[in-house]
């Protein structure tokens, strides 16, 4: 084993070597690591996904979600602007909003009926001035120095782009386009090009594994043709499909781009292909793929935006996949499927049919949750173990192929930089 470098923070695992191709199991299981990850990735310096504008079309519409492990509310105010506030009452701290979505003119905490505007400003404090007794004496109430301006809800910084809403607890976070980086923005804009989105519905799963494993999974082009044999069985995956991997300059975000090709079949490809070759579906409607103009050349683009979301375009199925950590050993994975307002009825039906491939029961997604669970089991059982991400070498960089784990190395190179930084 290579020499290990001690990290700046005592709680942190020590990595073998200076690069990131050997990942200590500890990063997936250590609770102190997890708390620091929440602070540094979810609560500071990063934009996190909160939802789609299409989920709150009208003034007063709100949706409750989470950033990291903190509850937030996305709401459209009367002016049509989207605000995000933390779901903690400024009085005695209750998580006051209980519905998952709805429409309201203001927020009221039921415990003592403190009332807030949709922007989170404190508007009403019952008995603030006390009550007047029978003999005209004013009793109790808030002291004169109490100023409602100091006691609003915690309001987050918000950025909307192409109908997607991001927020941050960190008011000094860099602008969203800089955060995504010029390498990722085009792929983001390809999917969210300004069209109005049409909400199709949700799937939710709790995956008993560390949240980073889902980022890894979608940064791992090595597994789809090997784990998702359904793809191969029905000819939807060829290792020689034209493909590219792109990441931002930090290596934290990435796009996996691929196009169905007809290139000559190399040996390894053949091996994969031959797997259950020649099977046919009884009902082909599930893979009745119709290219869409906005695709351009690629037919599949999976974009991972660190730490909180994945944007999926798998042929005609488009969705956002939100990551909500729940301790170091679990995360909730929330799928929001959508279409576009100009979709024909047939296209909507097509997107819904192809949705059978994805989500907690999907032919090529259910098994991703399974492998994440089983990986976590190993990590829990063997604190001293390490994971090997050596495919394509030890370096980090864009490629024109899929036979590499470079995106995973990129993510952990970034992870080490941020986590090792002085507090």
């Amino acid at each position, binding site marked *: 084993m290579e020499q290990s470098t001690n990290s700046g923070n005592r709680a942190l695992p020590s990595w073998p070597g200076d690069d990131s191709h050997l990942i200590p199991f500890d990063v997936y299981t250590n609770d102190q690591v997890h708390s620091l990850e929440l602070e540094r990735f979810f609560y500071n310096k990063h934009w996190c996904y909160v939802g789609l504008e299409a989920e709150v079309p009208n003034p007063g519409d709100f949706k409750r979600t989470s950033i990291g492990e903190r509850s937030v509310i996305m709401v459209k105010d009367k002016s049509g602007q989207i605000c995000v506030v933390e779901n903690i009452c400024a009085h005695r701290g209750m998580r006051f909003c209980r519905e998952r979505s709805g429409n309201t003119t203001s927020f009221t905490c039921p415990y003592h009926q403190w009332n807030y505007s949709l922007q989170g400003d404190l508007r009403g404090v019952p008995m603030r001035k006390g009550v007047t007794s029978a003999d005209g004496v004013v009793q109790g109430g808030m002291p004169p120095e109490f100023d409602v301006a100091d006691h609003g809800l915690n309001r987050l910084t918000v950025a909307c782009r192409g109908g997607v809403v991001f927020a941050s607890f960190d008011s000094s976070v860099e602008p969203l386009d800089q955060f995504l980086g010029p390498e990722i923005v085009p792929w983001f804009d390809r999917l969210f090009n300004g069209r109005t989105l049409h909400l199709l519905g949700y799937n939710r799963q709790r995956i008993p594994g560390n949240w980073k494993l889902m980022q890894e999974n979608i940064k791992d082009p090595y597994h789809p043709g090997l784990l998702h044999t359904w793809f191969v069985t029905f000819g939807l995956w060829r290792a020689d499909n034209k493909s590219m991997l792109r990441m931002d300059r930090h290596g934290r975000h990435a796009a996996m781009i691929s196009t169905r090709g007809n290139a000559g079949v190399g040996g390894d490809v053949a091996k994969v292909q031959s797997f259950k070759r020649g099977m046919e579906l009884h009902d082909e409607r*599930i893979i009745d793929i119709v290219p869409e103009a906005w695709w351009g050349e690629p037919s599949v683009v999976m974009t991972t935006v660190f730490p909180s979301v994945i944007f999926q375009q798998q042929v005609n199925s488009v969705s956002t996949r939100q990551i909500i950590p729940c301790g170091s050993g679990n995360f909730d994975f929330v799928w929001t499927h959508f279409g576009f307002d100009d979709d024909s009825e047939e296209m909507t039906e097509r997107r*819904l049919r192809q949705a059978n491939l994805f989500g907690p029961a999907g032919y090529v997604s259910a098994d991703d949750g399974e492998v994440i669970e089983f990986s976590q089991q190993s990590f829990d059982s063997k604190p001293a173990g390490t994971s090997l991400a050596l495919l394509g070498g030890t370096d980090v960089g864009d490629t024109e192929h899929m036979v590499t784990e470079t995106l995973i190395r990129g993510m952990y190179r970034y992870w080490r930089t941020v986590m090792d930084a002085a507090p």
Partner: protein
Amino acid sequence: MVSHMTALSPTEWFAMMQLYAEYDAVVDAAHWERWVQLFTDDCIYRVQPRENFDRGLPLATLSLEGKGMLLDRVFGIRETLFHDPYYQRHVTGPPLVTKVTAEAIELSVNYSVFRTKLSQPTTVFNVGRTIDVVVNTANGLRFSRREFIYDSELIPNSMIYPI
């Protein structure tokens, strides 16, 4: 006592109870061929979160149209979809008959499904109600529609087998 507006004959009721009992026995024993046989050729099989159903959102977690798609699901879970082996166990309440016509019977039933992974404790996997349409065929009663509208929206990782 007066009979129910939408009454089934004792024979029909018995046959219906056997259909429901067999459905649960078959899926819990993973007899997938038989599972497919309990549906009509043009059947609808859906598993949908209550949230989507209540809000009129069309997305389902699993949505199969016709026997072909059911057969493809069986192939998928047998041959291509890697997963942890587990037992499932259905316990269902009495069906509520909502409509009886010459062609079909419409019913709904509350169900619970328990999951047991090898050498692990049994957990509540999925609960909800069904929306069923049962028709009579040469082979006996069959489901022409079976929708599971589930309360358990936060799926414990994955749902591999049909419930």
